[in-house]
């Protein structure tokens, strides 16, 4: 028997809140700094973080003042260090983007608007802690001291690329900084990071692993594997969802029917926080809190980092096709660099002049690094890594069938 038609017309498919031509509005910042307590990181239950998971942890107000129990009381030097890393990230990104437009690299992804995420969070960790990033956290490498020339060498795929031209740009590997290789399949690192932390736990070492996933990729199974294994085995892992509102053109409301991503962690019995991702101090403080939990054997912390992808997904993306274009300026969290500058100025530790000098100095350093890197080659002009790198490091030793094919390739070399 055929069913009767219901009143609902057809399939429910969520729409993005705004599209090209619309005026964007956001109603996401209901909490003020100081609204949410800072629970003792030791013996904190998931339910004690319910308000944090549905609210928003903030330290900086929009006048640049820090207040409340989450203020991490960073020294002016620490704040200036964080600012310099963020400025460096932005200028570096702009330089790489220009190089991409001239064909010197195939592809690029900026961290624009999200610079605080990797930088504040990595600064809150210890140097022995593992970093398991996505392509939107390259800034962690600045904190861990990676040379910019080496980063550019990777992006432009020249002979000095430490991953030997095998991966697309921005897929960095930096073992010396405990920065684990970036992989294109989104979300896979989230569950792997739990394994990294389980190994640290097994070896009883004072180290944790931090990882990130996007709002979009949190719909992958790997996100749920990670939360579940973290809930069961309680390893020292910090699981961040960077909710930048967009997965290319897909709005976050298609990744989850829950208004906050942080709240999902409560169901896994993992203490969960939602934090203003453009507030350097709040990000630092929440990550430090999570690290204290990890170090004390309290297990995982789940953090939703609320921010806005101010730029395109990648150099291959044109967001004007699917969103208004200027809407990031209406983002209530503002710009992470501007907000930290505003705070430093407000406490009398920085000036517009110093900011200008910093930007000029860093711009010079990025240019110098760029000029050095291109002396080793670039994607447009070569020289490239040897084609032999196709066959090396597939296995520890080259098996016979790869050797045979390698010998065959050499006969047809296009070098």
């Amino acid at each position, binding site marked *: 028997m055929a069913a009767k038609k219901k009143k609902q017309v057809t399939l429910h498919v969520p729409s993005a809140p705004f599209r090209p031509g619309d005026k964007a509005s956001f109603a996401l910042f209901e909490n003020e700094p100081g609204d949410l307590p800072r629970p003792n990181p030791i013996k904190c239950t998931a339910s004690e973080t319910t308000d944090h998971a549905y609210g928003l942890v903030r330290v900086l107000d929009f006048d640049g003042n820090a207040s409340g129990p989450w203020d991490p009381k960073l020294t002016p030097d620490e704040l200036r260090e964080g600012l310099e890393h963020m400025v460096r990230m932005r200028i570096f990104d702009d330089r790489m983007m220009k190089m991409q437009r001239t064909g010197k690299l195939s592809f690029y992804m900026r961290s624009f608007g999200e610079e605080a995420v990797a930088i504040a969070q990595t600064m809150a960790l210890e140097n022995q802690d593992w970093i398991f990033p996505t392509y939107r956290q390259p800034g962690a490498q600045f904190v861990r001291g990676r040379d910019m020339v080496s980063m550019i060498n990777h992006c432009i795929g020249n002979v000095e690329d430490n991953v030997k031209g095998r991966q697309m740009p921005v897929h960095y590997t930096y073992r010396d900084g405990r920065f684990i290789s970036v992989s294109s399949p989104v979300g*896979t690192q989230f569950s*792997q990071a739990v*394994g990294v932390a389980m190994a*640290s736990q097994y070896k009883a070492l004072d180290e944790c692993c931090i990882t990130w996933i996007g709002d979009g990729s949190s719909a992958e199974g790997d996100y749920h594997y990670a939360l579940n*294994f973290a809930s069961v085995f309680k390893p020292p892992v910090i699981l961040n969802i960077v909710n930048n509102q967009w997965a290319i053109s897909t709005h976050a409301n298609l990744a989850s029917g829950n208004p906050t991503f942080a709240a999902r962690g409560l169901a896994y019995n993992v203490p969960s926080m939602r934090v203003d991702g453009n507030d350097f101090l709040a990000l630092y403080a929440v990550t430090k809190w999570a690290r204290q939990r990890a170090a004390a054997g309290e297990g995982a912390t789940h953090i939703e980092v609320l921010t806005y992808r101010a730029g395109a997904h990648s150099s291959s993306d044109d967001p004007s096709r699917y969103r208004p274009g200027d809407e990031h300026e209406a983002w209530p969290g503002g710009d992470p660099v501007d907000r930290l500058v505003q705070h430093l100025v407000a406490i009398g530790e920085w000036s517009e002049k110093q900011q200008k000098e910093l930007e000029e100095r860093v711009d010079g350093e990025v240019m110098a690094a760029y000029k050095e890197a291109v002396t080793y080659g670039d994607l447009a002009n070569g020289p490239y890594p040897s084609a032999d790198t196709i066959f090396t490091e597939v296995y520890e030793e080259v098996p016979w069938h790869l050797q045979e094919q390698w010998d065959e390739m050499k006969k047809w070399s296009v070098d």
Partner: protein
Amino acid sequence: MPEMNIVQAVNSALDIMLERDPDVIFFGEDAGYFGGVFRTSDGLQEKHGKHRVFDTPLSEGGIAAIAFGMGINGLRPVAEIQFADYIFPAYDQIVNEIAKVRHRSGGEFWCPLTIRTPAGGGIRGGHHHSQSPESQFTHTSGINVVYTSTPYNSKGLLISAIESNDPVVVFEPKRCYRGPFYGDPHNVPTWKDHPEAEVPEAHYTVPLGKARLAMEGTECTVISWGAMVHVSEQAIKNCGISCDLIDLQTLVPWDKDAIIKSIEKTGRCVIVHEAPKTSGFGAEMAASVQERCFYHLEAPIERVTGWDTPFPHTTEWDYMPSPARIADAIMKTMEE
């Protein structure tokens, strides 16, 4: 020398490696307290502690992912996937992550993990406790693929896999866990008195990449792996043709020298596997044999395989290669 079945041999390999190397840990669904649904890790949690031998959530994708993370952070994890049919939630982690991390990171990170999983039919397991998905892994570079067949090679190959610094997927023929299977479901022997059931208690290895000559002959070469090695043995005995029976043991990298040497001697080749025919690893073997040995061949290469259908439940004996089908293929090569 003690006699072991495959379950005991696998248990012994795990026990030895847990004993020898504190970086080795073992985990899987029901693999800890209970010792595994096939009993392969029986007693190991009690002996080595539950921090080294433990149960996991029912989450193959999660199991592979944590093994990856542990591997790159200095451990040598061994993960059990309870049935090879259930490995597919882990497929992305194995194919895109585990297999590629050494290469993609310029050699800065690598993942010395072993995934072992019971595979193949013959236990009335229906669609989803019977499949033999080896060719879905042989097509991915960066992992080694092993398929064991006897107690002796199950232990020696597993130890080699665990000691390897590359990821290895080890398929174990569950039909043969407690006895070799000769294709007659009504007459199921145990491993008792079988020469390959004589397994040293101590550490030893069977090297990766080396085949085993299970029978030696002159007229035809039968290449097989897993449970089908024993069915092929029965077929060879039944048809009375003098055959080399090559138990491939490692599929990636396969033992080129052993195959070429044998085909050059016999001039005939039959490939037997229980996985479906289309794109099965037998296709790779047939193509490779004709590339390398064409002028030594006296007859077209024959393949005897499972059908290109889902694996059946009550009619599995009509699905799996039988001694009669294999013998018929051998006889066909002799007609030329």
